[in-house]
């Protein structure tokens, strides 16, 4: 009988050790997640190179898209425009960014004019191939050229469609999946600003 209790106690000790280990591991993971700071270094329309560091103190709302995209991209930019309109004075603490995954074509067709049609606050960035790739990789997203004979220029892009939110220290906070209504994004932002 006593032996049985002793075994049971040892089992309990083992279980709790595993539990503590799991908790520590999770805390470590969360710390790592909190330390995830995506980087970019890409020119705006004027040719000035913009980096993640210069926006410290603001929340960044980042989208990866291309302007030849008539469905997902304008729909998301329209939500962002609504967010910026409805945030009121707090909009000053939010910077929306459109990072082109089709930079050569977007530079040619005028990224700034396109984005201004949605909201004057949206900043468009279009770098060269290498800088675009490293931004895409740093955000751990996806943006790739797809040959398509029926598309203008013979290709189209597939790209991550979420909006990514970075905090005032450049830390990755969360993503808003495609189709998240502006009101939900505003509610989330209001809780942080």
């Amino acid at each position, binding site marked *: 009988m006593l032996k049985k209790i002793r075994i049971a106690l040892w089992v309990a000790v083992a279980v709790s050790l595993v539990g503590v280990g799991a908790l520590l591991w999770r805390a470590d993971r969360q710390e790592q997640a909190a330390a995830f700071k995506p980087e970019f270094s890409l020119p705006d329309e004027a040719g000035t190179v913009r980096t993640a560091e210069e926006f410290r103190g603001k929340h960044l709302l980042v989208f990866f898209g291309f*302007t*030849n*995209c*008539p*469905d*997902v991209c*304008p*729909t998301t*930019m*329209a*939500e962002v*425009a*609504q967010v910026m309109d409805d945030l009121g004075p707090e909009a000053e603490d939010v910077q929306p960014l459109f990072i082109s995954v089709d930079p050569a074509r977007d530079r040619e*067709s*005028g990224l700034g*004019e*396109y984005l201004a*049609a*949605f*909201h004057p606050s949206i900043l468009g960035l279009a770098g060269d191939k290498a800088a675009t790739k490293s931004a895409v990789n740093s955000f751990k997203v*996806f943006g790739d050229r*797809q040959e398509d004979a*029926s*598309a*203008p220029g013979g290709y*189209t892009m*597939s*790209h*991550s*469609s*979420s909006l990514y939110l970075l905090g005032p220290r450049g830390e990755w906070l969360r*993503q808003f*999946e*495609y*189709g998240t209504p502006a009101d939900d994004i505003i509610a989330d932002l209001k809780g942080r600003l």
Partner: protein
Amino acid sequence: MLKSLLAGMGLAVMLPAVALADCAEVSQGQLLISAAWSRATIGTARPAVFYVTIRNNGSTDDRLTGIETPVAGMPMLHETVMTDGVASMPHASDISIPAGQTVSLAPGGYHGMLMDLEEELKDGESFPVTLKFENAGPVSVETAVLPLRAREAACGDAP
């Protein structure tokens, strides 16, 4: 003062006309086509979009097999597909319109992709699009051009 008053009156006269175009409804056979809209473009370099709502009031299925419009040299049916959060938009060879159901070409799903634009699409204007149905045949609908940042048809979906 008088000028701005006149401009204001002009606008007041124009608005109902715009609202009408936004809510154009066409029925042919068992199909009711409504809420056809597009977004304004800047120039003609980028493809435009076409959205519409199709209600099949009949008892037989139909199929949308293509679109045509004088504003684009290469109009096409597309479907936006999300795979693990990654968006792509393959060509849709046709779109099924089952009996008794409403199918919308709407943001994030099916859309008409208007490539090789012949002219800039301007907010407040409209243009015709002919929908080609397997059973109902061709149906032309007036498509309202909304601002680039529009998110839905100005009149909502057909009841």
